[in-house]
């Protein structure tokens, strides 16, 4: 579990995170949602150690990363997998090379073992046959899946995803969501997803935190989103008529006791 306690982060005179406290649970898809500029990306960067908070604690199973030396942080990073918004695959490596990369750097496996593990990960994300292709030769959705395969290659305890659905068509987005959800449950990973995608929020959100203007505005599950009376949350999630209608339908169903 990752626990954030009263994290404050400022840039020059602007305070972006104003004392956020939250918990992200093992084996659950934890979602961070919020409008652009609300501070969720800054929160994720603090969580993975790319930024250091001005004050507060970030506990990885009780280990406070804000007080760690670079050497200690390096060890924690071996337990982290990350899926970037733009996939961040290495252009010069094939799909297989990308997935094998963390294994080459941090495992004592033989080449045959690394290859076997990479093939398993590639198979797990349903990309069999794409091993020898370069990132430029595959679609955006496939690149995301390769990035997931690379992120899980070292069996991480914590998986961070920065807008995993951005730039993908709805069908592929759902596939990526399902894949992330399945992997989270299968391996008991603490998965934290920073997203704008309302399908993800309503589909796979088991622990959702809503950040508004640097504050933790609301928390709950995807079901709680429908019955919440938080105005800011409702304005954000149910901004379109489609989602407004979906909410009305859901509330009606609940009234009817279904």
């Amino acid at each position, binding site marked *: 579990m990752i626990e954030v306690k009263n994290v404050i982060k400022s840039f020059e005179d602007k305070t972006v995170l104003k004392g956020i406290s939250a918990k992200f649970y093992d084996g659950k898809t934890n979602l961070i949602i919020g409008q652009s500029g609300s501070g969720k990306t800054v929160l994720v960067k603090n969580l993975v150690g790319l930024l250091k908070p001005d004050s507060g604690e970030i506990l990885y199973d009780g280990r406070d990363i804000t007080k760690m030396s670079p050497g200690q942080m390096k060890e924690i990073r071996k337990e982290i997998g990350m899926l970037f918004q733009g996939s961040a695959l290495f252009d010069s490596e094939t799909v297989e090379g990308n997935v094998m990369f963390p294994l080459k750097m941090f495992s004592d496996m033989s080449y045959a073992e690394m290859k076997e593990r990479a093939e398993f990960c590639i198979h797990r994300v349903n990309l069999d046959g794409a091993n020898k292709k370069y990132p430029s030769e595959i679609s955006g959705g496939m690149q995301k899946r390769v990035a997931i395969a690379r992120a899980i290659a070292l069996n991480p305890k914590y998986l*961070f995803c920065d807008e995993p659905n951005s730039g993908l068509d709805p069908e592929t987005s759902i596939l990526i969501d399902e894949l992330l959800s399945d992997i989270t449950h299968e391996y008991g990973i603490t998965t934290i997803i920073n997203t704008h995608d309302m399908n993800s929020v309503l589909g796979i959100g088991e622990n959702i935190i809503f950040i508004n203007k640097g504050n933790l505005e609301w928390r709950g599950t995807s079901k709680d989103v429908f019955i919440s009376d938080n105005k800011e949350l409702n304005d954000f999630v149910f901004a379109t008529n489609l989602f407004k209608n979906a909410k009305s339908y859901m509330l009606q169903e609940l009234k009817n006791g279904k």
Partner: protein
Amino acid sequence: MLLQNTLNNFGTYCLFIWRVFSQPDKWSEFFRRYISEVVKLVIDSIPLVIVISLFIGAVCTIQMKLNIMSPLIPMYTVGLATREIILLEFSSSILCLILAGKVGSSITSEIGTMRVTEQIDALEIMGINSANFLVLPKIVAFVTFIPVLVVICMATSLYGGYLITILTSIVSPETYLYGIQTLFNEWYVWYALIKSLFFAFVISSVASYFGYHVTGGALQVGKASTNAVVTSSILILLLDVILTNIMLQ
């Protein structure tokens, strides 16, 4: 303001170099990347070096002949002067200015693109010292193999001069060959090789620095490449003056 920016950049550059020159996370990966960089930065530059050197050697020879009109100056001076120009300046300083354009912009755009596409962040998240992982093999590869390019440049330039004496009748090939062997000072070759080591370090490290610190998108990567080439060129010329003053005094 300009001085403050320059000092700020110099400080950031020093910190960057400090991160680059740390122990690699995995030596086998370092050597794999080192070999790959030798191919990309050095072997792939050989055709360009040969073409440029051939033509510059030929042009130098023609211009020497045109400028030596006095009957009091022996004709072998054409070969001798061509050799001195090539050994002292062209094979190191001018060649490195050319390579600052080719190799420098290639390094900056490669690392800059990795920065804006979050590939460097991905390395950092994995716990890899990205500056060391990406930049050290480039610097070591270019510095250790630049003498090869310099020697190729020297030989090809002199051969270019020889070819032009065969193709034209400005001076006989025998006289040219006699000229390039006359009053030969071996130290000039060492001088060019030593200078090139410094220039290679400047080209690879400055280009990497600009690429590594790109913020924004494709436009900024292009600007960073230009800045890297301009800065490297100025530093090469500045170093040229300093090293010449030290080594040829």
